[in-house]
């Protein structure tokens, strides 16, 4: 830097302009999002609260949503699927992430690849794979009956079992990655210190490692639950008529009944729920931790 002439030393004004310049670089993305994102989202409000004749505001769609048990049932089903998916993902995702963070580089690489490959593989292709595996004449049933473990093929597809298997498969990486992220940055000296002070391995884990990794677990649970309540493809392909989720309901209302105002109202309700889950998660784990993992 000593080679630089004095004229290159920026004045205070130039420095300010220099810092403001990056701000202008977001203009393109903002303009794009304003038209292709904000405008459509706002038009949903317009449709949902439109009066019957197309003029004035009305709460008719909202009262339909609140008044009908069919819709309550779809919300209940969606929450049930999301809750079970989150629970299973946490139970198998935490130990997996723990090994990923604590094992040697080669095995860690293998464990990471096993998460990343499905993560970036088409959800449609994976759902199709589960259809082939879980069908009545599918590979799992053929093998289980062939080995004598089952007398008759079990119903694993087009019901809530199929949905749960598919959902856990799609959303497990969203649980593993944030937990791994926090565990891999954890100072390994901390549990070791607890051990050297006489704590058993289990006690060191429960009192030191686990509490320190809770924000990662919370971020993972938030992501899984949030994506689970809005998911469309997997329940639509692997579920049966009793597994009507909010997303499938929206599709049905719009495509079969052509009832756009009510579809818009259901969409707003779903959007509100997602925002609520995000807010709860952000309060616990911090918005940045959740947002950082959205990038996969």
């Amino acid at each position: 830097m000593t080679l630089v002439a004095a004229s290159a030393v920026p004045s205070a004004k130039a420095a300010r302009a220099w810092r403001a310049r990056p701000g202008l670089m977001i203009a393109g993305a903002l303009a794009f999002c304003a038209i292709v994102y904000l405008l459509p989202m706002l038009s949903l409000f317009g449709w949902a609260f439109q009066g019957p004749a197309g003029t004035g505001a009305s709460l008719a769609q909202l009262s339909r949503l609140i008044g009908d048990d069919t819709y309550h049932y779809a919300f209940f089903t969606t929450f049930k699927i999301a809750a079970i998916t989150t629970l299973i993902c946490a139970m198998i995702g935490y130990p997996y992430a723990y090994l990923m963070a604590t094992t040697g580089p080669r095995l860690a690489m293998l464990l990471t690849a096993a998460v990343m490959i499905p993560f970036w593989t088409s959800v449609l292709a994976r759902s199709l794979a589960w259809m082939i595996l879980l069908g009545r004449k599918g590979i799992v049933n053929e093998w289980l009956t062939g080995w004598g473990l089952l007398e008759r093929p079990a119903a694993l597809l087009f019901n809530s079992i199929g949905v749960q298997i598919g959902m856990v498969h799609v959303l497990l990486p969203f649980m593993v990655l944030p937990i791994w992220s926090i565990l891999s940055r954890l100072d390994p000296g901390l549990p070791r210190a607890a051990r050297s002070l006489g704590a058993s391995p289990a006690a060191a884990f429960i009192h030191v490692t686990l509490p320190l990794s809770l924000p990662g677990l919370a971020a993972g649970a938030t992501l899984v639950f949030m994506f689970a309540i809005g998911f469309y493809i997997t329940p639509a392909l692997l579920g049966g008529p009793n597994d009507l989720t909010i997303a499938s309901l929206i599709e049905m209302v719009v495509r079969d009944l052509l009832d756009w105002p009510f579809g818009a109202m259901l969409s707003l309700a779903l959007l509100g729920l997602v925002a609520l889950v995000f807010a709860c998660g952000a309060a616990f784990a911090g918005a940045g931790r959740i947002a950082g993992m959205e990038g996969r």
Partner: protein
Amino acid sequence: MSLSSASPQPRINAGRSALWLLAGLTMLFLLAPIAVIIVVSFNDTTLFSFPPSRWSLRWYHALWESRAWREAGWLSLWLASLVALASLLIGVPAAYGLAKGRFPGRRLAEALLISPMVVPVIVLALGLYMLFSKLGLIGTPTSLFLAHTLLALPVVIVIVGAAFRRLDGSIELAARSCGASFPRAFWHIVLPAVRPALISAGAFAFLTSFDEVVLTLFLGGPRTTTLPKKIWESVKFELDPSLTAVSTILIIVSIAALLLVEVARRSRIQRQAKEAL
């Protein structure tokens, strides 16, 4: 993992073994469907038998012979390439602005630009349908291009933004103080320094579009049949073995993209190691 005879050691190893057993089963669960669909696609029969009793490429051949599948493949490829390009073009400057800029409303802008990622796709589909039907875009490739770019943009911003945040700002200041204009310093110094992130972002933006189903179903028409849309329509009709071949192609494209990202990341690490020597 040493064979130590000290008494606490075996207990740790037992716990560790249980963990590995669980992890092994999880890996099986994660990878089995992908492996199975790849293997089944090389079946010679119309049944989905596993392992196949006879191997053949007949389903790939059937795909290649079908004009509809070929056209769907080309459309998917074109669309995903354009989406990757467009989302890099507007996403990279935005990521830089968000990472390095100090201006009022920065956090709000960041939240807005990343949030399409968490909005359920079905909700986006509904909103976009309303907008695009007013503009007469429903059923055109343009509508898919715009919608897919909306999904790919946050992917680019998150990945490239993280790289810009890690980047040492002094190399850029050095270029500037040596007389480089801002665009020159950005193009010749800043962008090459984050090249692995640009490659990942481009690859993942490509995959985001290449695998997208829901927006394509809602906003597309007969003229915009991409591979996932055609798979979806066929699955709803009948589980045809050629679908396993298309799925295998989608899976291979994903794995190729991941390998590209990994190679870019490693070459960077190697170069840094050489420079350090």
